[in-house]
Each structure stands twice: as structure tokens, then as C-alpha cells.
């Protein structure tokens, strides 16, 4: 049940005046922020605030209209998603993108980096080596599955998992890539409260081993207990950044949230309250 080792040093990811427009709509408007190596950072904001688009820009799935993305000070704005992932930036998606027809085990095994068996030239010449690699990858996949409490469903096709389990599988796949920074897009959405607690423990554990996290979440109570720094986005802009209790106490943040959430009857947790009572 030990966590997969995160031995590589963390990555510092920085957005500089990142902008993305869809037609006349500016989804992300000159957002600058920095995720320090090994930091645990949260992003909140009402629906349509541009959080997922920001993730897309940082991971290369969405092209920037203006601004830069820096990784440890190097400009990676022009790199495609797979190249950024190879540098150690792993991401999950808001709507899970599991390989539906593959088993959970195969989903995890696909993600392992540097597989000889993916090369046609080696496939027919180095069978023994590939068998050995496969055994190691499978062992790692089972370790990750155990870490995320997915052992029981290892041989079920991923398409038949529950929404929460798919979220966990996405995290597991990301972990298989030996990331140094994980960008999680709503990891708690659709997950039952008990499991949320478990995922949070896992995140804390990985974080304590040096892995950086950047998390989008609607579940303010959970998120503000977890992260050290909280960014608030609204209408494509960065509204506030700082310690969770400070940020959530600000009038403009409360207004942005109340504006879109009051109708649904949601409570906006304020600084201290969110830490102790919310669950």
C-alpha cells in the first residue's frame, strides 16, 4: 500500500499573461500565475470562469492566443501535449477519458513510459525483454491500483466503472507516468464523500514526497483544507490568489461565488468555517 515513489524533483510551472479567445468570448484573459515546484495549489471559480481552459493552455491541449507557459523557466508554449507530459506534467480531465474497452489493468499499463513493446522494430526481435518489461509494468500498475483502492476492479473494462472510480483511474494513469506535477481537473466531482477523504489522503501523501499539484475543484470545503495556495478565477481573469482562508474571506470572491451559486442554495465556506466543520 505504499505510494508509488516520486523521486524526481518537482517542476515549476508558470503562466505569463495567458490568453485564449473563442470567437468573441475571452475564456482566459491575461492570466499569470506560478505553481512552485512541489506546491499544492487550488483553482476555484464559478462555471465558465475559464479554469479548464487554463489547464488546457498549461498542458498544451488548448493553443494560446497570447502569453507564455514556462516550465522551470523554459518556454514550452509551442510544445504539443505529449511533449509536455513527457517532461513530467500529468493531467486528468473534468469528464473522465478512460479507455472504455480496455480493462482497468490495461488502462494503467498503457500509461507506463518508455515501453520497448511499443516499438515495431523491437516487437519482433526482443520478445524476452518485452516480457520482462511487461511484468514490471504490471506490478507497478497493481501497486498504483492498490494505492487508489482499484484492486478489485483491475480486470473490469474501464467503461463500466462508476464516475468516481473513473476519476481514480485517471489519477492512477497519471501516476503511472511518474509525473512531477499533477494537474487534476475536478478530482472530487461524482466521488462519494468517503472516497473523497481517501483521495485527499493520497494527494497529501504524494505531496509530502515532493509531487506538485494543481487542482481545479468545485468542492470548496475539501479543496481549501487540502491546498496551501488558492487561486480564484472569474470571467477568464484571476480574481484573487493567496492562502485559502484569506482568499475566501474577500468580498469580491464571495460575490463572484454568491452570484452564481446562491440560487442553487450552496453555502460559501468562509475561511475558518471551511477548515473545521465542512465535510
Amino acid at each position, binding site marked *: 500500500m505504499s505510494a508509488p515513489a516520486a523521486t524526481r524533483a518537482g517542476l515549476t510551472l508558470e503562466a505569463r499573461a495567458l490568453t485564449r479567445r473563442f470567437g468573441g468570448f475571452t475564456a482566459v484573459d491575461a492570466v499569470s500565475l506560478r505553481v512552485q515546484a512541489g506546491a499544492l495549489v487550488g483553482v476555484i471559480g464559478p462555471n465558465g470562469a475559464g479554469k479548464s481552459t487554463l489547464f488546457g493552455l498549461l*498542458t498544451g*491541449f488548448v493553443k494560446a492566443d497570447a502569453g507564455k507557459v514556462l516550465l522551470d523557466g523554459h518556454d514550452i508554449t509551442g510544445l*504539443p*501535449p*505529449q*511533449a509536455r*507530459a*513527457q517532461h513530467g506534467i*500529468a*493531467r*486528468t*480531465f473534468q469528464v473522465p*477519458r*478512460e*479507455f*472504455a*474497452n*480496455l480493462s482497468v489493468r*490495461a*488502462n494503467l*499499463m*498503457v*500509461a507506463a*513510459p518508455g*515501453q*520497448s*513493446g*511499443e*516499438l*515495431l522494430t523491437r*516487437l*519482433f526481435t526482443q520478445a524476452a525483454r*518485452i516480457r520482462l*518489461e*511487461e511484468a514490471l509494468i504490471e506490478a507497478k500498475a497493481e501497486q498504483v491500483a492498490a494505492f487508489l483502492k482499484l484492486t478489485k476492479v483491475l480486470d473490469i*473494462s474501464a467503461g463500466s466503472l462508476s464516475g468516481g472510480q473513473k476519476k481514480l483511474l485517471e489519477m492512477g*494513469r*497519471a501516476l*503511472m*507516468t511518474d509525473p512531477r506535477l499533477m494537474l487534476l481537473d475536478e478530482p472530487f466531482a461524482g466521488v462519494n464523500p468517503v472516497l473523497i477523504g481517501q483521495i485527499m489522503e493520497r494527494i497529501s501523501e504524494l505531496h509530502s514526497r515532493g509531487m506538485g499539484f494543481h487542482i481545479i475543484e468545485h468542492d470548496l470545503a475539501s479543496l481549501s483544507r487540502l491546498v496551501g495556495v488558492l487561486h480564484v478565477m472569474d470571467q477568464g481573469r484571476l480574481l484573487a490568489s493567496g492562502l485559502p482562508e484569506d482568499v475566501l474571506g474577500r468580498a469580491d470572491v464571495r460575490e463572484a461565488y454568491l452570484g452564481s451559486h446562491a440560487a442553487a442554495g450552496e453555502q460559501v465556506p468562509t475561511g475558518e468555517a471551511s477548515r473545521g466543520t465542512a465535510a
Partner: protein
Amino acid sequence: MEAYLVAILIVTGIYVLLGLGLTLQFGLTGLINFGHVGFFCIGAYAAAILSVYGGQPVVLGFVAAAVLAALAAWPIGLVALRLRDDYFAVVTLGFSETIRLVVTSEKWLTSGVQGIPGIPRLVDGVGIGSGLTILALVALANLAAVLIFLRLVKSPFGRMLEAIRDNEEAVKALGKDPARFKIQVLMLGAALAGVAGAFYAHYIGYVSPDQFTPLVTFYVWMAIIMGAAGRISGALVGTALLMLFLEGSRFLRDIVPFISAVDMASIRLGAVGLALILFMIYLPQGLMGSKSERGAGS
């Protein structure tokens, strides 16, 4: 009658090779290749030109057929795989028609619409024995293709292809480049089609542009859809079923004598089309597919 059966089996074997290529591309990876006949055509003409005009040994023709077809697939993969699935389908269809037009126009090389006759047979003689030998060779090629296919499917490479079919964006997020795999699969499938083309040229003994219309592509599509898009057994059973439809309908004329040959050709196509529609409605996973398994692209 035996000779007729052997002839049908040889053609079936050639179509199974085509079907295996498409199974790899569509069934496993989700590539909608509507230009399969283009690679088949390149293989057939490569073999024909090398043996008839070049005087080269047959073996060289087969190698050239596979290599040239694969090489033709490379730029298409490079350019077209950046497009969305449906555009890729259109581009490949355009590619195969372009190949047919080139073959029709470049008379200095291909003799244009007159075609290239006198392609040597793989085995001399006209008796049933030579037919059986050719059939054995085709079967051997199929066996080799199946063995390669099995190795691919049960490997990390095959697992990646299925992952790409299920969700390409997620593959990118894991630091893998889907385009590399798709290009390789496109080239592999094309090489198989090229070999099928070489067999075809040496078996029929004559190639001309009108043998390589998109209809051939769609026959192969029908076969793998009726069989089961992602399975080797699907390619085998589906092709057998297709041949049963195509050849079986010939005998309809003996039973219903007042139908002319031209009418019959149209009725055959209609019957195959109807069968395809019925399959899509009642058995979308194909004869050999399992119920729980969704077809590629769904």
C-alpha cells in the same frame, strides 16, 4: 466445379488479406480508411510492371508491392492524420481515386485503360494442381499475416492502438504520440493490401484501372463489418460471407432465368447492401463479435 471452388477460395484469400489490413486500421485503431483499394492497386501494378516490363523475378514484385504500398501510405498518414476522422475518410477515398487516375493516365508506365496483360502466373499449368498450389501460397501469406497480427494485438503496441481508438486525447496526456502509431498502422495495413495486390495481379494475369474502383474498398468494409470489425476471425468469416453473397447470387440466374446479366449485377449489389443494412440494425458487432463489445468508433 472443383476448379471453380479453388478459384473462389483464392479470391477469398486475397480479400482476407485486404480485410486483415483494414481490421488492423479500423477495427483495432479506429482509422476510417476509405482508400484501401489504392494500396491494393499500387501492389498489383508494382508486381505487374516489374514482372512484365522489368523482367524481374516474381519475388521482387511481391517485395516491391508491399514496400511501395507502405511508402504511399506514409505521406497520407503524415498529412491526413492531423485531420478529424471523417476528413481522413474523405482524403483516403480521394487518394485511391487519384491512384486510379494516375494509373489510367500514365500510359508510358501502365498502358492506361488497356491495362497490362500477360502477367506470369505464380505456378505454370492450367490444371487443378496449379490452382491448389496458388491457393496454398495465398493461405500461407494469410497465415503469416495472422501471426504478425496476433503478435501485434497481444503486445504493448496493440494495447496502445486500442487506447488510441478509445480516446486519443488521453493518450496524448500520457506523453504518447498517437500520430506515430497511426502512421505505422496505416503503413502496415497498406503493405498487406500491397501483397494482396501482387497476388491478384499474378493470379488474374491482367491488370487494368477499372479493377480498382472504390467498390473493392467497400466490399472489404462490408466483409469486416459483417464479420466483426476488430477480430481476425471477423475478417475470415466476413469475407467468406461476402463471397457467398457475391458468388451465390450468380446462381440466382439459373433459378430465375428471365433476369439479364446486367440486371443481375445490380441486384447483387443491392442484395449485399441490404445485407449490410440488416447487419447494422440487428448485429452491429458482427457475427464474431461479442455483445458487450462495442464496435470501433462508437
